[in-house]
């Protein structure tokens, strides 16, 4: 089998973040990534799921967040799907770390961590289902 995938659906509550990041780390190891890279993937997933819970759903805990993990020979793909407020890739504005250090403030670093720790970060909208997706891809070297 050259392609496997499975799904996990969690309530849109931050109490489940630890479960999700633990899964992302283990999945990364299964995919063949090393410990250090697996830790980075788990951070990226934390940031993506936190964004969905706090921003797409505005902190409302009665919604669902679906994670789909796809294992291929080339990459581990983690798709995070939700029905909350969407974001498109062209709306992704990354803070400049040098400016950030000159003018420290709270927030704005999650997207930067996601983009630094993953090979690809994509935001998509599926008009047919009305759902939005954040796709995180880590290549297997």
């Amino acid at each position, binding site marked *: 089998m050259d392609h496997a995938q499975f799904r996990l659906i969690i309530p849109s509550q931050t109490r489940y973040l630890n479960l999700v990041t633990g899964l992302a780390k283990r999945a990364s190891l299964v995919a063949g990534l090393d410990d250090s890279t697996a830790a980075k993937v788990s951070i990226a997933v*934390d940031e993506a799921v*936190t964004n969905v819970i706090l921003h797409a759903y505005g902190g409302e805990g009665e919604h669902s967040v679906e994670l789909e993990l796809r294992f291929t020979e080339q990459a581990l793909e983690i798709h995070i799907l939700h029905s909350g407020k969407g974001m498109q890739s062209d709306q992704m504005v990354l803070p400049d770390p040098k400016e*950030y250090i000159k003018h420290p403030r709270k*927030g704005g670093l*999650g997207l930067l961590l996601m983009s630094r*720790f993953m090979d690809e970060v994509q935001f998509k909208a599926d008009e047919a289902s009305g759902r939005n997706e954040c796709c995180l891809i880590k290549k297997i070297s």
Partner: protein
Amino acid sequence: MADLSIAVRLVGDVAVVLPAGFINAHTVRDFEEALENLVQDGRYTILLNCQDLNYISSAGLGAIMGLIETVREHGGDILLSNLQDNVFAIFDTLGFTQLYRVFADEDQALAAALPGRKG
């Protein structure tokens, strides 16, 4: 086990904070409160000993960023020590190792924060 526990002890004028576990959007309020309580008590030099910190997300970084200016305005600072590799990678990736003084262990950090201190 709780996702996060936080111990605080005082060494001279330095408040040594030992977060153990995970700092993420779920636990960050506890971490933020611990730091804010210290600042409210006039403790402006804070050493985060991260030996038992497995993980910190941007929520936790935001909590630290939110206080750095306040403590420095009062002549204090936030120092970091004993960072695990993945926690160091987060700080370093974002360039925060230029913003905070990072030490290999607590003794080195205390020696820097308390120049007259004898080990």
